[in-house]
């Protein structure tokens, strides 16, 4: 059984693999995972938006599953593999989804990117040729504050097309 003792304000040591690196940081035992990532590990890609699971700005991949990290206690993630949008680029190359968000100008403030990019990446991993309805449903757990949804849907469409071209070339 794992757990922590109740001492207010007590810091615990949290061990995570963050974007491919085994790391350890001191965090408050009452932290949400997104707070531990940002304040303890200095990884600021996941944002704190609503903290109620509605907006998706805190999304990261935890042990293979995309997760709203405001609804995870940091202490419950001990030993987990965490990938943030900071860790999606391989050897400095943006992923198809990241590249398409850039070229379609699919963001203004960028706050929603963690949720949008991970949701789109999940969709394209299981469906290389989604319809616009599929794209909209896949993005539906994420809110854009700048209301740039049309450009976001266009970016996912573009990413899908580029990924299909790439797969056909190989």
């Amino acid at each position, binding site marked *: *059984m*794992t*757990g*922590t*003792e*109740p*001492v*207010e*304000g007590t810091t615990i040591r949290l061990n995570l693999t963050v974007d491919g690196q085994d790391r350890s940081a001191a965090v*408050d*035992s*009452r*932290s*949400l995972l997104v*707070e531990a990532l940002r304040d303890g590990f200095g990884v600021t890609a996941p944002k704190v938006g609503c*903290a*109620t*699971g*509605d907006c*998706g700005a805190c*999304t990261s991949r935890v042990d293979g*599953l*995309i*997760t*709203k990290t*405001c*609804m*995870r*206690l940091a*202490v*419950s993630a001990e030993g987990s593999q965490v990938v943030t949008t900071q860790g999606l680029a391989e050897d400095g190359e943006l992923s198809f989804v990241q590249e398409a968000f850039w070229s379609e100008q699919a963001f203004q403030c960028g706050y929603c990117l963690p*949720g949008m990019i*991970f*949701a789109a990446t*999940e*969709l394209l991993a299981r469906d290389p040729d989604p319809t616009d309805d599929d794209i*909209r*449903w*896949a*993005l*539906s*757990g*994420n*809110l854009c504050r700048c209301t740039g949804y049309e450009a976001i849907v266009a970016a996912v469409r573009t990413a899908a097309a580029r990924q299909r071209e790439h797969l056909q070339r190989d």
Partner: protein
Amino acid sequence: MIGHPFTYRSPESAAEAVELVSAAPARTRVLGGGTWVVPECNRGESAPDLLVDLRRAGLDRIELVDDVVHVGATTTYTALMSSAIVLGHLPMLAAMARGITGGAQVQSQGTIGGSVVAARPQSDAPAVVAALGATLVMAGSQGERRVSGEAMFEAASRSCVRPDEILTRLEIPVQGAARWGYYKLKRSASSWPIATAAFVVDQHGSGSVTDARLVLGGVSGTPVHVDVRSVLVGGPLEPGRVDEAARLVAASVHSPWEDELAPGSYRLAVTHPVARRAMEMAMQQEDS
């Protein structure tokens, strides 16, 4: 940051979990997937001394046992959507999981048991598991307890699971050849349901209805069981009888639920079309 101090435990068995929750039930909260309780604690609306997280308790198995599907309490919606047993034997449950609000994140974090125990009027799960004839299996210090039917949900946000117990699994009879329909009304893809209807119907080879269950969600504090058998049993499932059955529903809702999504009068007004659409889905379904 959660504002109050708490102890966190993640027991590795149901027995260990029961021991933890029964020590000080009034000051303990149980985490299934955490999608409701963690934000509640973060907002300061709940301040338990102990959080018991079931994620390592081994309660996430799906098994088929003699025409009954055993669904572990911490089974996520993503697991329901991708389980061959659920897809094959409980298609309505799989459809409900695919339509959960909150995106792929909430589908892989939220659990069927968590939603049942939270018993929120607007959630998908309570009405669907009721329409499927589920039995809830709880573990407590006195042993196992089983509850089914209308007794599963006592009031808005209060299920039959007592604070000194944990829900370990749902036992749901296979749907077999039964046709089904699940319809929900909501404002947008990312909003909570306002009203839902879950419908399961058994028919003879001839098409004559032998049994039917219709349960409404979102329209009252607890799921509303509508007795549509008097209208549907003994005849074919056809538009006239379906509409007649749908007319029964408004009278079954005694105190309509009100919240920021819709007033009670709106919910009452939409019960008829929502119920009819769920029954029409079943009517139009290909033979399985």
